[in-house]
C-alpha cells in the first residue's frame, strides 16, 4: 500500500465487537493499518462511530501493527453510536494515533496500577515494558463485572498480575508491593482519587511515578482545548503532549474540576 493508492485506509473496519461485561463494557477490534502502524502504547484515537454520533477520544488498549489491528475497550455509557457498533461496519471516522506514547524505559521493576475502564490501556503498556526487559507488576481493580476480563488481560502480559475488589484494597496492595520489593517506576491510570493516592504512597517511598489521565478530546489535533491540564505550572493539551505526566508536576485538582466540565 503506498500513499498514492485510493484511500480505503481512511476508514477503519470493525472486525469484531464483544461485550466484555454487562453494563456496556465493549471491546472493539479494528482493522486500521495506517493508524496501527504508527500507534504506540499509551496513545489515543479519536472515534466518530456513526454519521450523527459523538466524536470522542479512546485510549488504545492493544496494538498489532503487523496485522494492522487495534483494540479499543470502552464503556458505551449513554452513547448509542458506540453501543450500536457491529462487526463488518466501518467507523465514520478514526483519527490517530493522538497524544504522546507512554515512555517505555528499562528500569528494573515497574508497577502498573489501574482502576476501572481506564486501566485497559495498561495492557499494551505492560507488554512494551516487559519486552523492554522489565519485571512488570500489574495491580488492578474494577467493578465486579469488569474485573475478570481486566485481570485476565493483565495476567497475560505482566510478569505478575494481581487484582483487588476495590480501589481501597488496590492501594493497600500497592503499599504491600512497595514494601516487599524495590520498584523503580510506578505508572497509574484511573480516576483522580486513585491517582492522588498512588502519588502520595509512591512519594513517601521515593518511587518515581507517572500518572495517566484520560480527558475528553474532541478534534484530537490541538484545536478545542478540551483536554487541557495544568502540569508544572503551565497548561498543556493532552492530545499534543499527553496523556502521561510526571506525578509531581501534574495538578490533580485542576483535572478533578475539569472532569465535571466534559461534554460528550
Amino acid at each position: 500500500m503506498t500513499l498514492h493508492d485510493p484511500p480505503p485506509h481512511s476508514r477503519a473496519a470493525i472486525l469484531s465487537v464483544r461485550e466484555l461485561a454487562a453494563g456496556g463494557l465493549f471491546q472493539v477490534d479494528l482493522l486500521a493499518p495506517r493508524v496501527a502502524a504508527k500507534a504506540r502504547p499509551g496513545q489515543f484515537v479519536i472515534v466518530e462511530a456513526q454519521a450523527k454520533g459523538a466524536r470522542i477520544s479512546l485510549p488504545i488498549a492493544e496494538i498489532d501493527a503487523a496485522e494492522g489491528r487495534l483494540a479499543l475497550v470502552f464503556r458505551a455509557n449513554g452513547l448509542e453510536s458506540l453501543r450500536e457498533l457491529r462487526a463488518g461496519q466501518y467507523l465514520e471516522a478514526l483519527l490517530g494515533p493522538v497524544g504522546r506514547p507512554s515512555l517505555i524505559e528499562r528500569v528494573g521493576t515497574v508497577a502498573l496500577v489501574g482502576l476501572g475502564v481506564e486501566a485497559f490501556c495498561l495492557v499494551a503498556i505492560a507488554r512494551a515494558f516487559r519486552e523492554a526487559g522489565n519485571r512488570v507488576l500489574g495491580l488492578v481493580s474494577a467493578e465486579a463485572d469488569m474485573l475478570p476480563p481486566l485481570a485476565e488481560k493483565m495476567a497475560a502480559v505482566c510478569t505478575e498480575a494481581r487484582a483487588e475488589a476495590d480501589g481501597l484494597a488496590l492501594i493497600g496492595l500497592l503499599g504491600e508491593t512497595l514494601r516487599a520489593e524495590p520498584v523503580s517506576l510506578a505508572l497509574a491510570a484511573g480516576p483522580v482519587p486513585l491517582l492522588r493516592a498512588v502519588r502520595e504512597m509512591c512519594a513517601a517511598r521515593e518511587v518515581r511515578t507517572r500518572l495517566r489521565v484520560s480527558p475528553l478530546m474532541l478534534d484530537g489535533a490541538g484545536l478545542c482545548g478540551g483536554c487541557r491540564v495544568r502540569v508544572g505550572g503551565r497548561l498543556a493539551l493532552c492530545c499534543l503532549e499527553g496523556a502521561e505526566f510526571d506525578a509531581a508536576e501534574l495538578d490533580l485538582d485542576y483535572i478533578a474540576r475539569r472532569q465535571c466540565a466534559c461534554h460528550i
Partner: protein
Amino acid sequence: MPPHDADSAPKPKPKRPPRQLMPEQLAAVRVYNFAEVPLGYDEDLARLEASRCLRCKKPGCVTGCPVGNQIPVFISMILEGDFTGAIAKIRETSNLPAICGRVCPQELQCEGHCNLGRAGEPVAIGRLERFVADMERRRGLKVLRRPEGSTGLRAAVVGSGPSGLTVAGDLARLGHEVTVFEAQPAAGGVLLYGIPEFCLPKAIVREEVEHLLELGVKFEYNVLVGSTLTPDELAAAFDAVFIGTGAPVPMLMRIPGEEMAGVCTANEYLYRANLMKAYRHPEYETTIPLGRQVAVIGGGNVAVDAARMAWRLGAEQVTMIYRRLEKEMPARTEEVRHARAEGTEILFLTNPVRYVGDKTGHVRAIDCIRIELGDCDASGRARPCPVPGSEFQVPADVVVVAIGTGASPLVPRVGGLETDRRGLVVVEPETGRTSRPGFWAAGDVVTGPKTVAMAMAGGKRGARAIHAYLMHERGY
C-alpha cells in the same frame, strides 16, 4: 431646441446612487435559525452598486486586496451584465471568491482603499464579489477547466483551510498531481469548524472543494500529519510538500477558575456547533454547554461568531468582554453590527480576573476589572492597564474564551521545520520556502491568525514557488 444651449449651461454633476444596502434576515427572526444572515444582492442592486465605481486609473482597491483582484474590471463587467466574464476575471487571481466575498474584512482591505470612500462611502466590493460568485454557483457557470496533460509531479498539501485549498487548486491547474491531507473528516479547515453556518454556509465550502475534485485534486481525510503519516513519509512519496496547518491551538488567559464546567474555548464551542451540529442534539449525539447568560471574552471575529452562535443556541443574554475600545476591535465591522442588532452587549475596557463557580464546580459569574488605556505597545495599540479597585461582577453560566490562537506545533516539531519564538514556521517571505528543502508553508501557520484572503495570498505565492521548483529542480 437650439444646440448651443446645452453647451452653455453648466453640466450637472452625475448623481451617484448611495451605497446599496445588503438585504438581510431581520434580527428578531435570524436569532432563531442558522440560515445565512445577509441575503445577497439581486441583479438590479448589483448593477446599481457597480455603477458607483469611479474606475480609477490607479485603483486603490486592487492594492488593498491581498491577492490583487482586478476589482474595477470585474465591476465594469457586472455593470454590462457580463457575469461570466466577471467571475472569470476574479478567478484569475482568487480561488475562493464566494468565501472572501463573505468573510473578508473589506473595510481594511479593498474597500478601505477605495477612492470613493475618502469623501463618502466606498463601493461595496465584497458584496459585488459575493454576487458574481453566487451567480456562478446558481447558474452553474464553469470557468475552471481540468488541465489537458499531467506533469506527473506530485505535491502533498497538509491542511485543507484557505491556504491549502488555494495551493491545491493552483498546482492542479498547472497540471500537477495534488493530494490534500486533512485531519478532520471534511475539507475546509477553519471555514468549516470555525466560521458559523449563518456567516458562511457550509454548502459553499463544499462547492469550492468540489471544484478542486473536478480539477483532479485528491483528498485524504482523518490523517494527522506528524502522527498518522510523518513529514518524512510525505517527502519520500511526493516531489513537494506544502504545510497549511493554520493556527488552531486556542490560547487561554490562565486566570483562576478557567477549568470550571461552563468555561470553554471558542474553538470547542464553535467546533461542537458547526462541525458536530450540537444544536441539533439529540438527533446529533454531540452536546454543547447551553447557557442563559453567555459571556464571550475577546473582540475578534471568533468572539463575535461565538456570541452570535450563543443567541442561536437559545441564550437569553449575551455579553462580550473586550479589553480595548470599539475602534480597536479586530472583528469585521459588519459582524459587530450584526451581533449588536441581535442583542449582544459589549463591555469595552473590561478584562476578566477570575471565574466564580457554584458548589458543583459550574461557572456562575466572572469577576472583571476596568481597564485604562496606557501608552502604545509593540502592536501600535494602547496598552491595557487595570484600574485598581474597579472590580465588578458579570453573571454568566457559560463562558467562551476567544482571545486568540497559536500555530499547531505537531508538523514543525516532527518535520524539523524552523519556527520562531511564537511557534510560527519561518519562511522566505516571497516564496514560502521553509528551512527544510522541499517544504513550503503559508497561511496562519506562518503569519499567526490573519484573514482568509491573506492566507490565500500566501498560498498563491507558495504555489508559484512550488511550481517553479517542480519544473526546474525536479527536472520535468
